[in-house]
């Protein structure tokens, strides 16, 4: 999966209504609530078998920071 595909699929799963890019900050999104976080954790776990904990989530800023957390090498 490319970074762009990942961002698009995650935005779709989280039902984000605005346009997002790698620079979009989660904190600025209306959809960034406990349900949104749960969807993000579930989606990342399903696609990459990476389990994010509460501390990882608290540290997230942009979509790029999430990609770094998952590991850039996991993207094509």
């Amino acid at each position, binding site marked *: 999966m490319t970074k762009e595909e990942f961002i698009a699929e995650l935005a779709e*799963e989280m039902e984000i209504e605005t346009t997002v890019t790698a620079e979009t900050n989660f904190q600025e999104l209306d959809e960034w609530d*406990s*349900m949104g976080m*749960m*969807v993000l*954790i*579930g*989606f990342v776990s*399903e696609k990459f078998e990476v*389990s*994010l*904990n*509460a501390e990882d*989530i*608290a540290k997230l800023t942009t979509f790029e920071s999430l990609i770094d957390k998952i590991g850039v090498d996991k993207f094509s």
Partner: protein
Amino acid sequence: MAMKKNDLKGKNILVTGATSGIGKGICIALLSQGARVIGIGRDESKVSDLSFEDNKFLFLPYDLNNIDGIEGLFQNNSVAQEKLDGLVLCAGKEETVPLSLYKGDKIKSLFNLNLFSGIELLRIFSKKKFSKDNSSVVFFSSVMGELGQPGKVGYCATKSAVLGVVNSASLELAKRKIRVNAVSPGVVATPMTKKLFSQLSDENVKQIEEMHPLGIGQIEDVVPTVLFLLSDDSKWITGQNIKIDGGYSIQ
């Protein structure tokens, strides 16, 4: 009236989930009372500290997701040697998955472990050649069997299905005076909750603690009720769901 409190000496009990948390606590308590225990789990190294003296503890490594192979376990000579007095179905898995990601295969896999493995074990146990009359079965449901929480569609569904099994099986097996009950713990400090808490913020963990008027439970808060249900002291109790939750569900 002669009272013999929780006399389990010499009883032959099969316990799933024997390698961790509550199930392991039940095995230790049963062994200390002189019962013979057959434990099922996947990771044998987690029970290496349990005493194997006098062949009182038999461990069978087995992945209960494989439902079709369960009957074969009972053909094992040392299991079939003596009929069972009790069955404790403690193996289980907790997972938080938002509904939008809960596809069929994922939810089926949770049902396999939390529900179908228990039904299959009960089916085989219920045959006369494997169980004594007056024996006792204890299923593990959860306060989540009657209540809800976001992200727990799978867990709640499996745990409430367990209560349905208990209702029906208790009637079906009453003819042989076999009793079938459930216990429903609130949050108990075990490896399962450790994993869950690691995914939550400190604030969320505190909220969960505060939802238990008597605080979070310990393994030793749950084990005595299970021993009571396995013993003849509870011989007139069947088809029940006993909540052990520090007051969680009363609010």
